[in-house]
């Protein structure tokens, strides 16, 4: 049987690449995209993207034989879902296997931001400890945590923060009947009533810039923002001016509007922790995600039910 052409848009760990190549004809864009498409478009039946680069409207139009988009992510904002639905193109994603890692990262960002762990690691390495003690940092245990989006990841974050005796509150499109946390029907009230605001919702038209100037002001100069969702959830310009003007206690960011570029102002700040979109970046989880992507592709081409379909 002719090997099935799969176009991979994102980076892959070694395990993923090896396993994928055992079962499919894997290709990646060359430097000359036009040339590449001319030669390969007709043999590409599947696309793999991730949370940063996905099957856009334009790409879908260029791949007439495309049957399935298997995203190596749980976020779907980079895929033109409407077009996929119209064309009958299947879409799968990788929910659940990465929930723990992303929730762990949210807490890691809270701890490293509040307790200045990265800064003090640099302090020791540069020899400054010999000159004097490090400064005070902010206690985490007992601080109120407000979560935007109480889905699987938001719930996992809440469970961890509870172990630190943090009172938990949340905003969601609608109140969750089984959640034992305080509900706020709007983000502004949530921000006014918590010290650490965590963004954990999916990105769509309603949630773009859900953290704006008013929300930042409501949180205040002793407040912290942690973003493990999408850069566009926060009005990045307003966030930068708040940080530069000292109107926020600090931020921990895993995502940015224009990755891998980050706003200039962040380089000069010591009350921020910056990590390069590593939410699901563990060998264990990447293996599980790889297995799930490959499993979905195999199921599709064998006419079996998809493992984790979106469409």
């Amino acid at each position, binding site marked *: 049987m002719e090997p099935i052409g799969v176009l991979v848009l994102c*980076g892959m*760990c070694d395990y993923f690449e090896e396993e994928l190549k055992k079962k499919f004809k894997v290709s990646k864009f060359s430097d000359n995209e036009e040339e590449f498409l001319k030669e390969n478009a007709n043999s590409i039946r599947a696309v793999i993207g991730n949370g940063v680069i996905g099957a856009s409207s334009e790409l879908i139009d260029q791949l007439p034989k495309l049957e399935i988009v298997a995203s190596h992510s749980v976020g779907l904002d980079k895929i033109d879902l409407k077009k996929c639905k119209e064309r009958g193109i299947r879409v799968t994603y990788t929910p659940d296997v990465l929930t*723990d*890692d992303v929730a*762990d*990262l949210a*807490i*890691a*960002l809270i*701890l*490293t931001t509040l*307790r200045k*762990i*990265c800064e*003090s*690691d*640099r*302090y*020791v*390495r540069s020899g400054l*400890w*010999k000159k004097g*003690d*490090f*400064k*005070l*940092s*902010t*206690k*985490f*245990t*007992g601080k109120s945590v407000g979560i935007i989006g109480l889905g699987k990841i938001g719930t996992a974050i809440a*469970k*961890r923060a*509870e*172990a*630190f*005796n943090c009172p938990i509150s949340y905003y969601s499109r609608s109140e969750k009947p089984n959640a034992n946390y305080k509900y706020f029907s709007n983000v502004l009230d949530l921000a006014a009533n918590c010290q650490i605001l965590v963004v954990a919702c999916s990105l769509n038209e309603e949630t773009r810039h859900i953290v704006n100037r008013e929300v930042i002001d409501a949180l205040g100069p002793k407040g912290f923002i942690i973003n493990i969702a999408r850069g566009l959830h926060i009005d990045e310009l307003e966030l930068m001016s708040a940080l530069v003007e000292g109107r926020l206690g600090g931020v921990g960011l895993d995502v940015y509007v224009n*990755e*891998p*570029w*980050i706003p200039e102002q962040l*380089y000069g700040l010591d009350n921020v*922790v*910056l*990590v*390069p979109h*590593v939410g699901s*970046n*563990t*060998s*264990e*989880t*990447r293996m599980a995600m790889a297995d799930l992507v490959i499993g979905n592709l195999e199921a599709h081409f064998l006419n079996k039910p998809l493992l984790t379909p979106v469409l």
Partner: protein
Amino acid sequence: MAAPQQPDIKDLPVVLLLRPFPFISSYTDIFSNKFRSLNPSTSSLPLNQFLTTHANSIRVLICSGFKPLSSETLECLPSLELVITTSTGIDHIDLNYCRSKGIRVANAGDVFTEDVADIAVGLLLSLLRKIPEADGYVRNGFWLSKGEFPLGSKIGGKRVGIVGLGSIGSEVAKRLEAFGCMISYNSRTKKNTVPYLYYPDVRDLAANSDILIISCALTDETYHIINKNVLSALGREGVVVNVGRGALIDEKELVRSLLQREIKGAGLDVFENEPDVPKELLQLDNVVLSPHKAVLTPESFSALHELLIANLEAFFFNKPLLSSVNLE
């Protein structure tokens, strides 16, 4: 209405501040309204002479955890009844001398427990998910020039071995359980009320753990409790986090194991010879280093001040101390 009268300083009970820690300004007034402090650093007299001069009025002193309180100093204070240290650890105090003279010792009780537990978890997460390294990666522009950051290691499902299941160890256990870790421990005695697996031998604990968290007190028995045998049992995939005292770990052996990749990594808030850190560690990417700052938060300091004042009042009113340490 007339302002309340300032107490006459001569009438206030005396407290010796030996190598005083900086008072938070909000507590300075409260303290000086209740107690008369004697501060050797404000005198030109050499320490022993200062102490001998005031010896008769000194029944209680406050010291910090960072410098030893030797019998040499204590011998200058024949009226001393109570030593209060602003640390949790009491290994810097000549306990034999205190025991022999019936001098009581009080420490910081539980005021630091949560902050230390938070730092233990923070160091572990930072190590496994490579947070300081990733932060440096972004700040140095490597995300642009080198591409994706290397993978870290998942926390859930890992076996955590806690050496010393006291207040701090228990708080660490509670936090890590929420991340899906399995908890076991070593302690002087088994604790029948906890649901965790007990290992009477630290080496066995290490052999059955992916992560060792050191949170016990430093005593003659626990000096270098983490030695070559234990590190070797922990193995290539194992990591160790120390928030107790530097001397709980054989530091030379730890450095060697890290350099040879015989263990995977370490998160350290304490070292054998602070503020000196073995220079080999400064270049390693599989360690997270912290300058003994686990308790350095305004929240802990406020709680410490409250406790100090409460202990002093209890002492002067012959009431039970709030955080006295059993010296037996």
